[in-house]
C-alpha cells in the first residue's frame, strides 16, 4: 500500500505492507521491519528494526499528529486528496487569513485601488495583531468578511485584481 503524506509542504511517499502484527515500510530508500506490540488510546508501541519505539498519534480529518521520541510532527495525508481547490478567479489574487482570529479592522472598500504592501485588514489573535497587506497593486474585487468576524487560518478574506 502506498500512502502519501505532506510535512511542511514536503511530500513523502510511504510504501507500507501490513500483515497481521508485522509490517514492512520503505520511504526515500530507507526501510524498516516493524512489529506492532500494542495499539490503544492513541498510543502505538512498535519494535522497529529491533528497537522499541513508542508513538502517540491523533487524527483530525486528513491530519495526523505524531509524537515520537520527544518530537512532534504534523503530517497530512494527501493521497486521494484533490489538489487544494482554487476557484477560477481569472487573475484575481486571493488574500487569506495568516492565522485564526478576529478581524479587527477592514481598511479598504470594494472597488478601491490599492498599492502593493498596503495594509488592507488587521487580524488579531491571542493578544497579537497582524496586518494583512496587499500582495500586489490592484483593485479590491471583493471583501468576504466584516470587522468583528471570526476567521480560520487560510480562510479567504478578500480578492484583489
Amino acid at each position: 500500500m502506498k500512502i502519501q503524506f505532506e510535512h511542511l509542504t514536503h511530500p513523502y511517499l510511504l510504501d507500507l505492507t501490513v500483515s497481521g502484527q508485522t509490517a514492512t515500510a520503505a520511504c526515500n530508500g530507507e526501510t524498516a521491519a516493524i512489529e506492532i506490540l500494542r495499539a490503544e488510546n492513541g498510543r502505538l508501541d512498535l519494535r522497529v528494526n529491533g528497537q522499541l519505539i513508542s508513538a502517540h498519534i491523533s487524527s483530525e480529518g486528513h491530519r495526523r499528529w505524531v509524537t515520537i521520541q520527544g518530537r512532534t510532527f504534523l503530517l497530512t495525508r494527501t493521497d486521494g486528496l484533490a489538489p487544494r481547490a482554487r476557484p477560477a478567479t481569472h487573475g484575481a489574487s486571493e488574500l487569506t487569513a495568516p492565522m485564526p482570529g478576529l478581524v479587527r479592522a477592514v481598511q479598504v472598500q470594494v472597488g478601491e485601488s490599492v498599492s502593493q504592501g498596503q495594509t488592507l485588514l488587521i487580524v488579531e489573535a491571542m493578544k497579537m495583531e497582524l496586518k494583512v497587506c496587499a500582495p500586489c497593486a490592484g483593485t479590491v474585487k471583493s471583501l468576504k468578511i466584516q470587522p468583528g468576524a471570526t476567521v480560520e487560518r487560510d480562510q479567504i478574506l478578500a480578492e484583489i485584481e
Partner: protein
Amino acid sequence: MFQKVLVANRGEIAIRLLRACRELGLQTVAVYSAAEKNAPHTRFADQAVEIGPAAPRDSYLHLPNILAAARATGADAIHPGYGFLSENAACAEAITAAGLTFIGPPAAAIRAMGDKAQAKNTMRAAGVPTLPGAENLASESEFNEAAERIGYPVLVKAAAGGGGKGMRVVRSAPEMTPALEAARRESQNAFGDEHLLLEKFIEPAYHIEFQVFGDQHGHLVHLFERECSVQRRHQKIIEESPSPRLTPELRERMGAAAVKAAQAVGYTNAGTVEFIFDARSGEFYFLEMNTRLQVEHPITEALTGLDLAQWQLRAAAGEPFPYRQTDLTQRGHAIECRLYAEDAAAGFLPSTGKILQFHAPGGPGVRVDAGIETGLEVSHFYDPLLAKVIVSAETREAALRRMQAALSETVLHGVASNLDFLQALLAHPAFAQGQIHTRWVETEFHWPPALPPLTALVAAALAESVSGVPQPAKNAEANPFSPWKSTNGFRN
C-alpha cells in the same frame, strides 16, 4: 482572614491560585467567559460564575461583572492573578471600595510603578540605578552632546513610544542625523508626536529580575533572582534561577536595590523588580516593576521552598511574613519552560484548535502548571500560554537534563506548539553555557524543524488501524480514509 476568594482569571494561573486557596481552607469562586464554560479552571473551585461574552473586555476585564459575581457568591476577597486586572490601580481601588480585599499591593504602589517615566524618576531619587538617558532635547547638537556624555551606543526612542516603533540604535556620531530623522518620522506616524529621548543602549543585554515580598507590617525581603533572557519578541520563553551571570556579590547588590525600589513605593505583597544587566560592565539598571505575581513565580518557589501564592493570601489577610533576609537561601537550580500555542515552524503565529491529546510529564522535581486538557478548545481570544513545565534539581546541569527529559515526555496534539522549539533551544551549546542574551533567539538562533523519520510516517499510516486514536468529536470535514468516522465516537 477572609472566607471566600474569587479568582478573577483563567487558565493555568486560575488553577494555581484556586489550589492555593483550597490548601489554606478557603472557599473559592472561579469566573469564566461564555467561551470557557467547560474550561478546567472552573472545576477547581467550589462555585463558578459566568461573567460575560468571550472577548476579554466583556468578561475577564469587565470589573462590574466580576464584582457582581463576588456579591452573588458572597466572596470577600479577589485575587486578580496576572494580566487582565492585576496591574490596574483603579480596579484595585474599586475592589477595596466595594468592601472586598484586593489580593495584591496597595493601589498607590501599582499606580506609582505603572507610569514608566514617573517610576524611573522615583527610582533615581531612591538611589536605584536607572539607565542613563536624556530628555527634552531639541537640536541635533543637543542630542550629540548627550550621546557623548552617556557614551555610545545609544538608543533614540519615541517619548510617546512602545512596541519598538520609533526606535533607532546609534553607534557613532555620524549615525545620529539619519537616526533622528527616521525615528521622528516613525514616531509621528505611530503616535502623532515626534518628541524623542535618548537612552544608553545595552548590548548584549540580560534580563534579570528579583522577586520581592512584603507584609503589611513594614517587613520586605527579596527572594532572589530569575534569569529571563531567553525571549522572543520581548516574550519570555525559558526562565531559570539562579542566574548563570550573577556572583554572590552582584546578587546581594541587586537584591538590595530591588528591596529599595519596592520600599520607595510603599510596596506590600508579591512583586518583581526587573533589571537590565550589562555583562560587559557588570552594571545593572532598573527596567520596571511588575506589581503582581509573575508567570515564572514557580522557579522561585522551587528554590526557596515558599508558596508565593499562599503567602499572597496570608499577607493580604494581615499575617506577618516571618522570614528575615538572612533566613532565606536558594537551594539547587530551577528552570521553567513556557508551552505556547504558537506554530514555531510557521513564524510563531498563534495557533488554535481542539486539544486531541495532552500528556504532562512527571517524576521527581517536575511540576506542571497547565490550563489545558484533552478535548479543550483553544480559542484565539486569550493568551497563547497553555502550560508551564518547571523542574528543579541539585545543579544547573541536572536541571537542564531533567527539563529535556520532561519535555520529551510531553505530548500535545491538536494545537501547534513551541514544544520542539524549546527542546532545540535547550540542546544548544549557548544555553548549556548560560550565554543567551535577550536578542539571541532572534539574531543568532536558527531552528529548522526536524524532518519526520520513517517511523513517524509509519505511525501516522497505522493510525487507521489503531483503535481509539483521538480525533475531534465533530467531523465536519469529509474524510475519505477514516474507517471509524461514522462508528467511533471515542475520545480520550
